[in-house]
């Protein structure tokens, strides 16, 4: 439960000492330092029905992933959260990886009629409203190796200050270090023909990954409207791939990160059973697919309509439609340059918390189709399971996804939650 904290100094070391002095103080027990340990372990197996397009690619991958969370909170409500992540993958050496998802100090207090909050350390931040794609979400790097849906994120070092009140929420971010995107290894699926030289990312900035990025966001909720406006200035999270050679002279793709400037808006209007969603960005400084600098705009917008308690049962069924557009057209560095996403969500509201989301992305310019399926269900109060699939029934030869055309997969996961 949120509790009120007392304002204090700014330097991280001072914060640490101030926040946890009670932990080493003899009165610690009386002051009540809370400790909480939670998390999940998942066993997963991914199966690709078709053999890979490139030599060495595996048809099956098994693995285990753990994400424990350690939480400390003192009597003043200041807290420290530590969330390491580890995955072992039997097929792809790159997918066996470790990350610190979270390691941050949190403090907050009153500021006038409103409130301030400061998070310092490694944290995750989400911006956005749409379902099929997260356009404006830029603070954290994508942990692409985890899942091609781009929803898994790497921990990002940051100082994140929030100021909120009746007038809305204003946030500023100082981002001192760039995390390079995780990418599949040579035995992994869902990649380009040439292997990625992930250990040697290239940067436009002379400061390389130490360029100090800044971001800001204003958001508010007015009646049925929830909206946000954001700005980012710094190193792109999306790599451009430069062909080259590695240390032994073999051809590789070097991830290259430009300096970009991005404006973004995201909004949702929730009226009865309707949710209307929009995300739009304008980005400058990035290269297009031909390697040429091009300022561009992109958007994803659509709706979700829910039929509550259908057919006299407890189940809710939603239909979703979203249009993805990228102003660069065929020079877009994404597959979603002009694509329609249609999906349905089924939630029977049962004891097991079952949920199913099935969707198809139709490419308006080409014959490409991408089908997605996500199914989650609790087995007991501690164990749960998931089935996920991405199917590529047809990928046009001109599509950026063409090298992955044989990489449809099914994934079965078993989770232990503690």
């Amino acid at each position: 439960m949120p509790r009120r904290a007392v304002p204090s100094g700014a330097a991280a070391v001072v914060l640490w000492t101030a926040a946890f002095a009670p932990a080493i103080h003899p009165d610690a027990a009386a002051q009540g330092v809370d400790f909480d340990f939670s998390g999940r372990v998942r066993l997963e197996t991914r199966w690709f029905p078709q053999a890979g397009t490139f030599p060495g690619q595996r048809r099956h991958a098994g693995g285990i992933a753990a994400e424990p969370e350690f939480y400390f909170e003192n009597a003043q409500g200041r807290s420290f959260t530590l969330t390491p992540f580890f995955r072992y993958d039997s097929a792809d050496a790159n997918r066996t990886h470790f990350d610190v998802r979270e390691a941050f100090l949190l403090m907050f207090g009153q500021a006038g009629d409103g409130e301030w909050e400061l998070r310092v350390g490694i944290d995750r931040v989400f911006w956005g409203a749409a379902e099929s794609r997260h356009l404006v979400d830029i603070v954290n790097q994508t942990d692409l190796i985890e899942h091609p849906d781009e929803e898994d994120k790497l921990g990002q070092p940051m100082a994140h200050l929030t100021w909120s009140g009746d007038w809305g929420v204003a946030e500023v971010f100082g981002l001192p270090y760039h995390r390079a995107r995780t990418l599949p290894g040579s035995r992994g699926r869902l990649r380009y023909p040439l292997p990625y030289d992930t250990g040697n990312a290239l940067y436009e900035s002379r400061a390389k990954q130490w360029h100090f990025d800044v971001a800001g966001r204003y958001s508010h909720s007015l009646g049925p409207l929830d909206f946000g406006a954001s700005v980012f200035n710094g190193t792109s999270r999306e790599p451009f791939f430069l062909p080259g050679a590695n240390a032994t002279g073999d051809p590789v793709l070097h991830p290259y990160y430009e300096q970009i400037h991005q404006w973004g808006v995201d909004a949702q209007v929730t009226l009865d059973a309707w949710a209307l969603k929009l995300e739009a960005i304008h980005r400058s400084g990035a290269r297009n697919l031909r390697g040429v600098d091009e300022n561009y705009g992109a958007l994803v917008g659509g709706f979700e309509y829910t039929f509550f308690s259908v057919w006299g049962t407890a189940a809710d069924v939603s239909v979703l439609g979203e249009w993805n557009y990228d102003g660069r057209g065929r020079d877009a560095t994404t597959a979603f340059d002009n694509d329609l996403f249609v999906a349905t969500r089924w939630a029977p509201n049962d004891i097991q918390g079952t949920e199913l989301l099935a969707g198809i992305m139709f490419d308006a310019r080409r014959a490409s189709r991408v089908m997605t399926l996500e199914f989650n269900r609790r087995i007991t109060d501690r164990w749960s399971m998931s089935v996920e699939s991405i199917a590529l029934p047809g990928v046009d030869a001109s599509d950026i996804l063409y090298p992955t055309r044989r990489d449809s997969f099914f994934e079965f996961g078993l989770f232990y939650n503690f």
Partner: protein
Amino acid sequence: MTQACSQRASSLFRAFPLVLAACLAAPPPAPGQDAEARGLEIAQDARARGEGFGDFTASQTMLLRNREGQESRRELRLQVLEVPGDGNKSLFVFDEPRDVAGTALLIFSHREDDDEQWLYLPALERVRRISSSNQSGSFLGSEFAYEDMGTPEVEKFTYRYLRDDECGGLTCTVTERVPTNTRSGYSRQEVWQDTDELRVWRVDYYDRKGDHLKTLTMSNYQQYLDRYWQAGEMTMVNHVTGKSTVLTWADLQFGNDLDDNDFTRTGLRRAR
């Protein structure tokens, strides 16, 4: 009884004149105007008695049981802030089952306007506005619907006093309330309140077809601050599915000095 009787009587009048005869033997209902005024008066009186609490925090445990006797447990904490002249602000944080631990729900309920709801999903670090149209939807897979979880606002029902009845050694008024919201899952509810303190002891819920769907019984009432009564246990039985949910309250504390800042979208991410 009288009401059920008169409904049955009108629809079955031709086929079963005897039903009508049996009903006529029952005491006549109070004249409509008076019964409505009295029902509304009881509801307003009950609200007035509950006003001024300021804020409270509490824990809840839900035991879900299906027809076969299989059980599943839900644990959550909540904090509630009174908004004078309007509804409440409520924040729920889920602890069990563990796969949804840390999920938090923020609700601004309003006397007349639609409620506003935001859901925080910790796995995605995402705060999502959700529709408040889902009134009849199940809360966490339990037999409690969303609309059963909040305080029933007086303005969202029309009332009719039905009769006095005995309830567990006390005398209760039985009032019918009809939701004005067309998205409610109920056609009407019958509420048993004791005449001493207007505590609710039982609610019968009738579905849109008019069938008796669920019964809520309240017990283990305790008084707080020498004024406010809260049931320690609430049992909801679904007569159609045979499932039931027992909701137990614990650690109820008033006067926590909460304010609007404890009920924000930013605070949702901190809730745990």
